[in-house]
């Protein structure tokens, strides 16, 4: 279980301090699917980075399975079975997808298992295992390989930062199928998304705006409110 307690994060610009996250409390139960949504610039991606340790909070506590991991490094969090999928996954010249999956797994991964993870994200393993994770891959392919690296890790908590960002509609439809597939893996999913189709898969939805949680509850409770708000905004624009 992940618990964020009174998490704060501020950045210092010249003589000014800007609060990105203000007093956020969130609990992500085991084996749950939680979607964090909200307007751009509201602090969602920062929150994901704070959980993985890419940023350090300026206040508050992060607990994972009851242990305080606030000051624990990225690799130590990884060893506690927390994983993070980048919004813009980096590419590596010379590193094959086979090698990347083995690195994610922590040891040499069998061909059979590598194929399983790639097919779970909708890729044909034989076309990809020996390809390099370089600029020759499309944005959609890189996103799906990024997800496969998380599947290869036997995680307790997987964090996805806007997996739909920068991919076309065709790839997005496949991505939704991929996340449906992820339900069979026995892990908690914390996913940042703007997409209704992804929110429809969630157990719980959290809305983060201006660095604060403004709504939090079950999908059945929150999603209709969000859709109603969206319709109202659209009507005002007309």
């Amino acid at each position, binding site marked *: 279980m992940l618990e964020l307690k009174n998490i704060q994060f501020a950045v210092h610009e010249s003589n000014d301090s800007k609060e990105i996250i203000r007093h956020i409390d969130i609990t992500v139960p085991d084996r749950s699917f939680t979607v964090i949504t909200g307007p751009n610039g509201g602090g969602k991606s920062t929150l994901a980075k704070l959980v993985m340790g890419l940023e350090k909070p300026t206040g508050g506590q992060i607990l994972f399975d009851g242990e305080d991991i606030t000051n624990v490094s*990225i690799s130590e969090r990884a060893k506690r079975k927390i994983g993070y999928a980048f919004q813009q996954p980096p590419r590596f*010249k*010379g590193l094959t997808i086979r090698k990347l999956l083995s690195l994610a797994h922590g040891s040499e991964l069998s061909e059979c298992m590598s194929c399983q993870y790639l097919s779970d994200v909708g890729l044909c393993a034989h076309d990809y295992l020996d390809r390099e994770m370089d600029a020759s891959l499309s944005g959609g392919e890189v996103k799906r390989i990024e997800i496969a690296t998380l599947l290869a890790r036997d995680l307790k908590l997987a964090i996805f930062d806007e997996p739909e960002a920068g991919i076309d509609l065709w790839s997005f439809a496949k991505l939704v199928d991929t996340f449906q597939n992820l339900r069979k893996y026995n892990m908690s999913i914390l996913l940042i998304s703007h997409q209704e189709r992804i929110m429809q898969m969630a157990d719980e939805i959290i809305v983060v705006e201006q660095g604060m949680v403004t709504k939090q509850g079950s999908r059945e409770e929150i999603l209709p409110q969000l859709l109603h708000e969206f319709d109202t905004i659209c009507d005002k624009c007309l």
Partner: protein
Amino acid sequence: MEQTDKNLLKTIAGISGFQVGRAFNLRKDGQGVERHSTPNVKINPKTDKPGIDIIVAAHAQKESVHIPVILTQSGIKDMVYNDFYIGEGADVEIIAGCGIHNDGCDASQHDGIHTFYIGKNAHVTYIEKHYGEGDGNGARILNPTTVVHMEKNSTCEMMMSQIKGVDSTIRKTQMDLAAGAKMVIHEKLMTHGKQEAHSDVEVELNGKGASLQIISRSVAKDESRQVFHPKAIGNNDCRAHVQCDSIIMDQARVSSIPEISANHVDAEIIHEAAIGKINSDQLIKLQTFGLSESEAEAVIIDGFLK
């Protein structure tokens, strides 16, 4: 053979001694110490200067030649001329390379001048590894010169790498390609400490349909310095693509100076060059797999120079 010799051979040529049924020449500390020819590959010592002639018979297929050089004495300066005559239609793999073990305080130096005459329709794969080791303060210096003359429709792939322990290297490569000849060069280099590496490559594409691809990847660490100067000259309807990628670290310095010239309206010549440090997202990505920062760095470099 001593253990040091075996270790050097293993590193530079992937072998621990003579390969049964294959042509072989081992040069140690300025002397030829073991030599074997085969029916299709003759290795003859030169009579006018140090070195050997390697003659591969026309139409010989799947031949393999090992010609490693090792230096184990501190203070030795060795210069050798090796000429390769590859007969028409032959297919041969040549594994060269030089390993220096210097425990002394004097410089050990090997200058190898390799000249290739590749016949029509012949195919050559050339693998050359350079490596240095030892606890002494004496410099380990390697200055290879490679000259390649390619006849019509011949193909050649050269994989040249220098991964560790060579303090100073000046590499000079000159090539001329006839019609339909195809050359692919993979160059890999890693420097550390205060090492210096210079690489000048000049390729003249003289015949119609000649093609060249140069893929150079390097990593410069510590206070080392690297200078690359690949030059492709198109004198006919030909294609050339030169790609130089370098990772720079610490206080290292890297210069990449690709030069392309076209002397024919149908010559298509492209170069790409990039120098940059390791991307922080790459390091973080691997840390999210549980690797430490230094482990992540090693994985990135290994992959890049693979």
